[in-house]
């Protein structure tokens, strides 16, 4: 199940970055996001799974589609895109990304970053009452970390960060409004994005 979802996610992403038609790319990207949401569910994080669908797939991507529709790119856009994207353009970035991927995967295969048994690090995280300290590393029964825990964490430990995020959204709202001001209809839209993402976690 996990592998299926992962493969869907990766293939969809691959298709998303290689499509010439922006709408098709976005559709694949949405599929990718949805499968990542399913991954989240499997990882025991239903809340962010829902948020991923609502905000990422449901709002941010809608915004993308919206803008693409506003730009109203016809078939000639696909043609132009093809010209911008000669096959040899893939070589350099592909190599670079491959090296990076390799470097990212190396420590994972070494198990370098993952402690196997209850070490001191585990003790730090044993403050969550529902999980016995010894049970966590064994990964036998994955507990679900629900919205309540996330909310409590969000509004206690990360309260400052939440407020900063609020500022960021406000800045984004004002900035988008300012940039897009000459076209009032479009400028209102980017602003419209902020609220769902801000209120989602609340």
């Amino acid at each position, binding site marked *: 199940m996990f592998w299926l979802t992962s493969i869907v996610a990766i293939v969809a992403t691959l298709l998303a970055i290689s499509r010439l038609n922006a709408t098709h790319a976005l559709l694949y990207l949405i599929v990718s996001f949805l499968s990542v949401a399913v991954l989240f569910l499997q990882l025991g994080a239903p809340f962010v799974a829902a948020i991923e669908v609502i905000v990422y797939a449901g709002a941010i991507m809608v915004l993308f589609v919206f803008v693409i529709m506003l730009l109203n790119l016809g078939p000639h856009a696909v043609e132009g895109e093809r010209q911008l994207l000669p096959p040899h353009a893939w070589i350099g970035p592909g190599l670079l990304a491959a090296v990076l991927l390799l470097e990212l995967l190396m420590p994972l295969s070494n198990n370098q970053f993952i402690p196997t048994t209850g070490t001191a690090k585990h003790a730090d995280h044993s403050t969550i009452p529902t999980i016995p300290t010894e049970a966590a590393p064994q990964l036998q029964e994955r507990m679900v970390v629900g*919205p309540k825990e996330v909310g*409590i964490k969000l509004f206690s430990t990360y309260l400052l960060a939440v407020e900063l995020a609020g500022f960021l959204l406000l800045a984004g709202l004002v900035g988008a409004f300012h940039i897009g001001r000459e076209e009032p209809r479009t400028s209102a839209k980017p602003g419209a994005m902020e609220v769902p993402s801000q*209120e989602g976690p609340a």
Partner: protein
Amino acid sequence: MTETIRLLLCILIIPNVVLGMAAGLILLERRLLAVWQERLGPNRVGPFGLLQPLADAIKLLTKEDWIPPFADRPVFVIAPAIVMATGILTCAILPIAPGVGIVDDLNIGLLFFLAMSSLGAYSVLLAGWSSNNKYSLIGGLRSAAQMLSYEVFMGLSLMGVVILTGTFSLREIVEAQRDGWFFIPQFLGMVIFMLAGLAETHRMPFDLPEAEAELVAGFHTEYSSMKFGVFFIGEYAGVVVVSALMTTLFFGGWLGPWLPPIVWFMLKTLTFICLFILMRATLPRPRYDQLMALGWKVMLPLSLLNVVVTGAIKLATTGDGG
């Protein structure tokens, strides 16, 4: 074993019931509209015209399934599927009665509903875009803006209920209403949710994406045959789901005296469906900018106020910040 059978039965029955209701609704709507407008309505096919939906279905299925040559073919085909899929998926979380429901107790049930409704926006958007027709495109754009805007405070209006119950699980929300239905403490939330639900399902008076007078038929201008039928059914399925959620969230779900729970649920849902139709029959369609202004300048502040006041009262009564 019985558990599995029960689950299978639910999976088989509930979506079909919803879809059946959606189809029946077409008839119901036409009949009710006729009653309120003092005319007869469809009454020829079957007793009281009861077989009219069937006839419609046959007509739609046998029509030519035409895809315009200028359309973006794959997207054109996918678009109606999305609305159907999200509609049916939403049925999964409806707690119809104790023991009746597909996902028995999804702890993010409410969020799941919001997620599905936000995905639903794609169907309209993509349909409008892929038709490659300016009326459709405008319809799609309108619907995207409208759904985005109304989704915001649709979510917010439900937060009042969430604050009162402390859970996203629909079943727990229903259980929490044993002492009193939430439409009393959350009256503002209920009104906002109902209006947002109207907008989400593009019902009159918020049916601007498909306003016949301005945009021919909006995003589904180019659709014909069963693809059109799917849009049609999808919209009514949305109405059913929103009514069911109204019932669940604000009117105690299956709770009620004497009658079996499932009957209570059906009755309440049907009442709201009729209310929706009544609204269509009575209210005029606003201008598009009025719609957006209403959303951002009236509804959003109100729903925020609702959240703040509810939260404050909850804090004050429990006296516990956690």
